[in-house]
């Protein structure tokens, strides 16, 4: 291959023997293993990457890491496409495809750039001041605004990848694998502590990878290699490269996004977890998250070719790429001189080093001077030129106060402008943990002050920038963390490698570098936030208009709200605001950082519980039979229950009607295993029943059952069911399917917290028993055959009786209970016999025409009887009296849960909604459930409503539609005609008793 002239022949962490092909905006290019997309593009001489968010200005690559505000691309296509990825964070792989975003038709010729021409009338928040007329027109304006905004495009298809999660526990979690982090991890590991070391990069080393430091007379990367090798040898150490710690939550709980296959072509990652979410509970945390270089805010500081100085150095040393041929360095500190020297050494021409400080004497500047580099001290860049790439800058003398420039502008040709405004410690995780920051005016940055959690910062994120100091601090932090976690630290030997650490003079912080015209006056823009196109003038405007809190300013200008989350704009923006308000930075405040540190895939947060695993499903011991015989399932909470069993050619209506007929005319069978079952054992069991049910339980005989209503303390019905007395001090309570856990929890709560000395134990036995319900006039014939040894005659086994005995030869229980209004038995056996019992029933029942019926038929049958169901007739707003079930309330009991609430004034209103039946005059009509009921039909709304339909079915038994409804003062309305307005018509109905079928209960007792 023909090497591009930007790529050095030697050096860096790239593998020159492994060339990778990739596509950028549809054109093929070549890069090297070890490249990022950004370094590969730079190596190919590509400087224009995309268009900016608001003004559609051309933008290039600004940084080499997570802080990138400009180089945002669309990665891959089809189901694998991903919008808004930072080119600086994409590891290059063979076959990679990427495109520019936010431009049309191409990044070179972008129609949206007209916005830049109108920039004068588009200051921060311009949209708050206009587009108000006419008021209906906002949707039209919005249509165009929405299409102009946004960056990349979402995929249209579902993501084929797998995401995984794991919990982890450790003694010391070290965040960041630079010099401080490696030192901390090594120190902690040597004590025997469980250590996790996570770093967002593909390899450990942090800033050392992008520099040419020498440690113990060898390249620093050699020290990195040895440390990583030693760490890998500890069984208690887990190394997580490509892993971003993005959230620091309460009680030292941290979330890590590990990218496992993002460095591979999508087809090579197929079937393997693409990413893993580590949820770590750490005894101690060492934050070694480094720092982010700050830009300078100067005129037209957004041209492609303007780049953070350290990033240019990283491209050179780590990737072997010259980010330009001729560079101008623009700095306010000594550190950028190291970049200048490295660039010069690699053959990049240095146009000049423009330094805001009038007096530049530190060791690094001296070295640069000695190297023959031109230093323009006390000067400033006042303009940049170039279209798709910087071509030159203009430089003028800066006034001693830094508030204006003077003299003649001097033009310096360059295609790279390396900017450095000092360093901001990466305090995001520290801030997330609840730690308090303090402002260090000398270094113009926020540093950690007071920890809230078990955490310590080391290295650059702590404001310690020298590499030797970072190592020392890392060792100390790792050791201290392990010590606090309970590991012996005495005698752990740690020797820092010898490394040169040049001293640095102070920086000169200027909120805005003055330009040739006043800020905001000329055409030049001083950008603060490149991602959201926020300028210094915008921040000043916000301050002027009274948005004095930094939160107001951020929201008004959108400063720091872009895809880079303001990593490079936060402190500069704050400095400009403070300056505009005439305050000190700490008095204006900083923002509290919230997770995530960098954007996190929703797929990762969702993890493995997707598709068939997305909801926990529960099945009964008889599930297979239902499935194999074509049963259609319905979800009741987590339970999967047979809804109906269609035969060939039947739709739901036909099947349900047939099932209903079978129960009314012969016999049906239903799987009732999902009903909740709770055993209450002990002498005080009856006290519990008396307290949790509204009726009285003292006189229930052994072997008998009783129905009861359960009320909340607010007097509202929340559950109902039948409880059987199995023995002297042993009761079996049944609950609804969905209410089982709640009822158990409700009783257990009272027993543990209020009735603490009652002698009773409660145990959930729902899962222990399979229950089969046999209902219909022929039920007894069938049960007699199955329950050999039990007399099931009407006299010997009355309604609401229960017996223990053999069922189909298995040990079990027989109860005579009905939820359908027909003669009914419930047969229960231990769950492992459930399928055997069911098949025995089906075999024996064939001659009676035994028909399996599902939940839909049950609903119809119970509605015919006016039996209530949770979520329909009661929903937490209905009292027993409302349901016409005062008979289920024992008013003479001194107390029960909810009793007092029933005495409140509102409970006694005559116009409360009460349960009634509705008989629609058109017998063929079935009211939609949820329909509203009115007393009078008016020509136009509002029409006062008096109630709503809670249940409504076609009654196959009565050959007409029936409905239950809650109607205001309904009990006094019997015989009245009410109206149910539907979408297209109004139906009339007569208020009737909710019991439509067999009101005397003859069949039930038969």
């Amino acid at each position, binding site marked *: 291959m023909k090497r591009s002239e930007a790529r050095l022949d030697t050096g860096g962490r790239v593998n020159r023997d492994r060339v990778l092909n990739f596509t950028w905006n549809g054109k093929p290019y070549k890069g090297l293993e070890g490249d990022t997309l950004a370094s590969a593009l730079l190596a190919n001489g590509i400087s224009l990457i995309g268009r900016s968010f608001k003004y559609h200005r051309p933008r290039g690559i600004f940084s080499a890491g997570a802080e990138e505000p400009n180089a945002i691309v669309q990665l891959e296509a089809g189901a694998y496409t991903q919008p808004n990825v930072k080119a600086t964070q994409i590891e290059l792989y063979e076959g990679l495809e990427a495109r520019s975003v936010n431009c049309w038709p191409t990044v070179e010729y972008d129609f949206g750039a007209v916005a830049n021409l109108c920039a004068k009338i588009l200051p921060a928040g311009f949209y*708050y001041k206009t587009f108000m007329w006419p008021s209906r027109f906002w949707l039209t304006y919005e249509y165009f605004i929405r299409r102009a905004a946004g960056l990349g495009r979402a995929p249209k298809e579902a993501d084929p990848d797998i995401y995984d999660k794991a919990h982890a526990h450790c003694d010391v979690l070290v965040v960041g694998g630079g010099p401080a982090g490696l030192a901390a991890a090594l120190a902690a590991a040597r004590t025997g502590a469980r250590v996790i070391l996570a770093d967002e990069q593909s390899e450990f080393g942090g800033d050392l990878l992008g520099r040419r430091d020498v440690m113990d007379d060898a390249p620093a990367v050699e020290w990195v290699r040895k440390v990583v090798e030693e760490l890998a040898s500890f069984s208690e150490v887990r190394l997580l490269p490509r892993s971003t710690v993005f959230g620091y939550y309460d009680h030292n709980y941290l979330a890590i996004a590990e990218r496992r296959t993002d460095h591979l072509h999508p087809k090579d990652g197929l079937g393997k977890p693409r990413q893993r979410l580590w949820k770590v509970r750490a005894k101690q945390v060492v934050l070694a998250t480094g720092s982010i270089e700050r830009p300078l805010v100067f005129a037209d500081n957004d041209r492609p070719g303007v780049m953070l100085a350290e990033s240019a150095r990283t491209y050179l040393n780590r990737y072997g790429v010259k980010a330009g041929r001729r560079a101008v360095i623009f700095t306010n500190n000594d550190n950028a001189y190291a970049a200048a020297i490295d660039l010069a050494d690699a053959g990049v021409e240095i146009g000049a080093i423009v330094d805001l400080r009038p007096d530049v004497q530190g060791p690094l500047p001296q070295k640069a001077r000695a190297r023959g580099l031109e230093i323009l001290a006390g000067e400033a860049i006042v303009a940049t030129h170039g279209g798709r790439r910087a071509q030159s800058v203009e430089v003028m003398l800066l006034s001693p106060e830094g508030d204006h420039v003077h003299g003649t502008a001097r033009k310096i040709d360059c295609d790279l402008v390396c900017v450095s405004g000092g360093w901001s410690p990466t305090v995001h995780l520290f801030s997330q943990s609840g730690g308090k920051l303090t402002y260090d005016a000398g270094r113009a940055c926020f540093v950690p002050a007071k920890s809230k959690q078990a955490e310590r910062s080391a290295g650059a994120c702590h404001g310690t920038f020298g590499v030797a100091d970072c190592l020392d601090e890392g060792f100390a932090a790792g050791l201290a963390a392990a010590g606090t976690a309970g590991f012996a630290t005495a005698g752990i030997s740690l020797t820092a490698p010898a490394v040169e650490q040049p001293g640095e003079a102070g920086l000169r912080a200027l909120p805005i570098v003055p330009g040739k015209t006043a800020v905001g006056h000329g055409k030049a823009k001083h950008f603060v936030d490149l991602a959201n196109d926020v300028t210094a003038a915008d921040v000043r405007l916000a301050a002027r208009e009274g948005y004095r809190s930094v939160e107001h300013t951020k929201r008004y200008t959108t400063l720091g709200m872009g895809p880079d989350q303001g990593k490079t704009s936060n402190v500069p923006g704050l400095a400009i605001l403070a300056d505009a308000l005439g305050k000190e930075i700490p008095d204006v405040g900083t923002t509290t950082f919230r997770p995530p540190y960098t954007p996190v895939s929703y*797929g990762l*947060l*969702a993890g493995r519980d997707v598709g068939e695993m997305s909801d926990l499903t529960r099945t009964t011991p008889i599930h297979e039979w239902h499935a194999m015989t074509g049963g259609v399932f319905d979800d009741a909470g987590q339970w999967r229950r047979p809804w109906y069993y269609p035969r060939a050619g039947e739709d739901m209506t036909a099947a349900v009607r047939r099932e209903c007929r079978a129960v009314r005319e012969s016999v049906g069978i239903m799987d009732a295993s999902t009903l909740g079952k709770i055993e209450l054992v002990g002498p005080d069991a009856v006290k519990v029943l008396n307290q949790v049910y509204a009726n009285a339980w003292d006189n229930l005989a052994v072997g008998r059952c009783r129905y009861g209503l359960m009320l909340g303390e607010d007097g509202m019905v929340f559950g109902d069911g039948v409880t059987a007395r199995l023995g002297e001090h042993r009761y079996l309570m049944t609950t609804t399917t969905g209410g089982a856990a709640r009822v158990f929890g409700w009783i257990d709560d009272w027993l543990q917290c209020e009735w603490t000395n009652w002698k009773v134990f409660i145990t959930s036995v729902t899962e222990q028993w399979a229950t089969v319900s046999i209902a219909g006039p022929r039920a007894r014939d069938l049960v007699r055959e199955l329950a050999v040894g039990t007399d099931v005659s009407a006299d010997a086994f009355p309604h609401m009786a229960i017996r223990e005995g053999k069922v189909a030869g298995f040990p079990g229980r027989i109860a005579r209970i009905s939820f359908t209004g027909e003669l009914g038995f419930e047969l229960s056996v231990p769950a492992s016999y459930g399928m055997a019992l069911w098949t025995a029933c089906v075999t024996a029942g064939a001659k009676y025409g035994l028909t399996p019926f599902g939940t839909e038929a049950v609903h119809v049958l119970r509605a015919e009887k006016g039996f209530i169901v949770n979520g329909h007739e009661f929903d937490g707003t209905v009292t027993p009296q409302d349901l016409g079930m005062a008979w289920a309330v024992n008013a003479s009991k001194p107390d029960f849960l909810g009793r007092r609430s029933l005495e409140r004034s509102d409970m006694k209103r005559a116009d409360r909604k009460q349960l009634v039946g509705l008989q629609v005059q058109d017998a063929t009509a079935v009211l939609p459930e949820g329909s509203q009921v009115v007393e009078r039909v008016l020509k136009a709304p509002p029409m006062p409503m008096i109630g709503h339909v809670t249940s409504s079915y076609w009654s196959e038994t009565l050959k007409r539609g029936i409905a239950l409804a809650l109607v205001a003062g309904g009990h006094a309305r019997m015989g009245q005609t009410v109206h149910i307005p539907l979408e297209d018509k109004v139906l009339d109905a007569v208020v009737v008793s909710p019991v439509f079928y067999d009101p005397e209960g003859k069949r039930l007792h038969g």
Partner: protein
Amino acid sequence: MRRYSIWSLLRNARSYHEGWPEMWRSPEPKPEYDVVIIGAGGHGLATAYYLAKEHGVTNVAVVEKGWLGGGNVARNTTIVRSNYLSPESAFLYDKAMELWPGLSRELNYNVMFSPRGLINVGHSREDMIELRRRVRALQLNGIESSMLTTAEIAKKAPILDCSPTASNPVLGGSWQAKAGIARHDAVAWGYARAADARGVDMLQNCEVTGIRREGGRVTGVETARGTIRARKVAIVTAGHSGVVAAMAGFRLPLTAYTMQAFVSEPMKPILDTVVMSSKLVSVSQSDKGELVIGMSTEPYASYSQRGSLPEVERAAQTMTELYPCTRRLRMLRKWGGTVDVPVDASPIMGKTPVENLFINVGWGTGGFKSIPGSGFVFAHTIATGEPHPLVAPFGLDRFASGRLISEHGATGALVHGE
């Protein structure tokens, strides 16, 4: 107040936008006001504005412990709708719906009210019953709303998985065309600017530390900037209502919880309506292109304004199931607000045990959409001393009588049957 328009923008462009006036003054507290409103959130600011505009009560201070508009009005998912079940709630929220369309012009500040329509999706039979009940009730109350079929939903929200095999099947839904979203900050700022122009004092960084009473009647408030006398005081403090009520010697039937929301990175338009569901509270796409997702409240009391991870995991799981194309998208930002949730999930408005002390709290998870209506009727209540007819059912007395207004279903987390 100098008016905003395209012309003022052009004019100011000539002076480099350096001539714009302040949005509101930063006055020193007066010793006494006719009305002191505690809390410069959306509801407090709207109340102040309508007191001045509708009732001519301009000697008003809005006292705020932090910066105005910094509470839940800055932390919600910006949804505006009125599809509530009970007639009391429906009328109250619809009062707001009536005011939203004209709000930008009324305040001369673009609140970007975008009536793009709202879908409530039903995933179960119980959901559908509840939705139909709500839609019918709204229609009979004269409030616009209708039912949608699955096919209609698929057309309005193509990224929603409406296939029969979806793990959360879409059985149908309801629709409110006039519902939508608005720019939350702008609502607070717009009301503040308009109230200021009518003479209302915004007292920021002025935390209330006590409520002065004499003989069962309120006489003023103690603040970080001194004691301020007042003839009437109104508590409009959302998440902090319990704390402020305690200063006046009574408790409230509510709990403060954290509610979280998160947004994705900005994208080109993929969702043109607001979608709510019993499985995931809400999704909409902002004008900037971010998908804005509202989550459920955290499961324990908190004033932290920051949420935990499990709720985010749960919401992401549901979101990616409902919207399969979102799995590769990324969460950019998340935040939490403190919501005051009453036991019946309906607001508490009106009089208190202390004479001349009024409350307007407990909006819980539904506060933003109601701001204009709430401010309008609450201003009436303060000015006349008697609850506005729309306010009357929402009094604190309902908790003793038992006449609660259950709206748990309206927040999206529908109550499920068996």
